[in-house]
């Protein structure tokens, strides 16, 4: 069977697929970075936002940070198992990571339901607009990550395409890092 170029060719010191993931992350830095930079500018220039921000729930945010940090651990353990050539174990760890992603999304939707119920909607004011857009774009990355991990786990379970475990893992750690910055910006600085 022909293997895709992305997994077989290595013109740049790392596989082309891995290189593509790094490029993807570079573009993500600009997307999330621009969004967060805009948020910080407005947050600093609008003293009234402090009051709006005080209504976010620090404990729910902390819980979700814990979930994502832990899912990063299982992602790197999947990578470790894949390096050892143990596809079955890698698939298992990926499933744990997907479980983390789903937990994160469930917590997030409960959190949002409560907030929307209290009238903190995306149109309430500038702070809540940023809150939903930033966390929403992040959550869409969590969803995409979970889907791709499911697909990679399916192959890994048959000991195929194990190099993809690291690729999806690196993407997942990035999603984790974005949240590491969103957390203090949206939940802690009050």
């Amino acid at each position: 069977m022909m293997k895709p170029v992305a997994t077989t060719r290595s013109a740049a010191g790392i596989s082309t697929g891995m290189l593509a993931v790094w490029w993807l992350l570079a573009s993500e830095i600009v997307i999330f970075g621009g969004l967060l930079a805009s948020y910080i500018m407005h947050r600093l220039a609008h003293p009234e936002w402090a009051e709006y921000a005080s209504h976010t729930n620090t404990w729910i945010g902390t819980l979700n940070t814990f979930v994502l940090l832990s899912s990063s651990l299982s992602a790197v353990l999947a990578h470790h198992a894949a390096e050892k050539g143990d596809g079955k174990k890698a698939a298992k760890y990926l499933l744990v990571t997907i479980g983390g992603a789903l937990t994160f999304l469930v917590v997030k939707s409960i959190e949002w339901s409560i907030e929307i119920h209290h009238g903190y909607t995306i149109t309430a004011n500038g702070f809540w607009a940023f809150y939903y857009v930033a966390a929403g774009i992040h959550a869409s990355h969590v969803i995409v990550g979970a889907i791709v991990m499911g697909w990679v786990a399916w192959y890994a379970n048959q000991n195929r395409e194990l190099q993809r475990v690291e690729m999806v893992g690196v993407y997942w750690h990035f999603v984790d890092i974005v949240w590491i910055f969103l957390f203090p910006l949206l939940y802690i600085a009050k």
Partner: protein
Amino acid sequence: MSDHAHSHGGSEGHEGHGEEHAHHGPEHYVRIWVILLVLLAISVLGPMLEIQVITLVTAFGIAVVKAFLVCKYFMHLDVQPKYVLYFLTVALAFMLLFFFAVAPDVMNHEGQNWTNVAAQEHIARALAEQGHGAAGEAGDFDAAGVFATTCGPCHGAGGAGDGAAAAALNPRPANFTDPAFWADSSRTHEHILTVIRDGGPAAGRSPLMAAFGAQFDEAQLEALARFVESLNPNAQ
């Protein structure tokens, strides 16, 4: 290339590193995870002291440390070919360029030749709604001073209709020091008070004249109206 999920680019200076990395076992990753959780706890507890410096350090300083740990030990960024780090840094630099190029405009609501009246008003109104606006005791309320700062951007500090933003407004704010303005008999004390408290539309004027009822209490509104009326040259 082998199916080996990890490949160490040929960056010479990092051979030792790569070796060391290859020996990392699961315990090593668990240890990093525990450190991350301890940092998380600190970043939540630190700001509870409500000391600003500690909040900044624990919330944002720790975020940077956590991101570094994840990059180095989970993403293995340090054993990738050097250029990966370079182009990620370039992306980061573009983000900072964006911030520092735009921030001076976005974060200042006043410059040498311009005033962002809409933003200033928005902030004043929002703060007033939250109950810590300019409202104080009417006794030590400085109507002329408040007029100069709050109304001045449009009306001019002296009420002559020559504020920094006046030229951009249509209709332009009137010149309160012009007797012709007061010659209009509809401009009673009640009318002036209503305009200031409830905004232009409440008294058949333009919505560009905002309502200040949320920002000042009744006595202060009264003082502002009296001040505006005192600008009438024929008032004395």
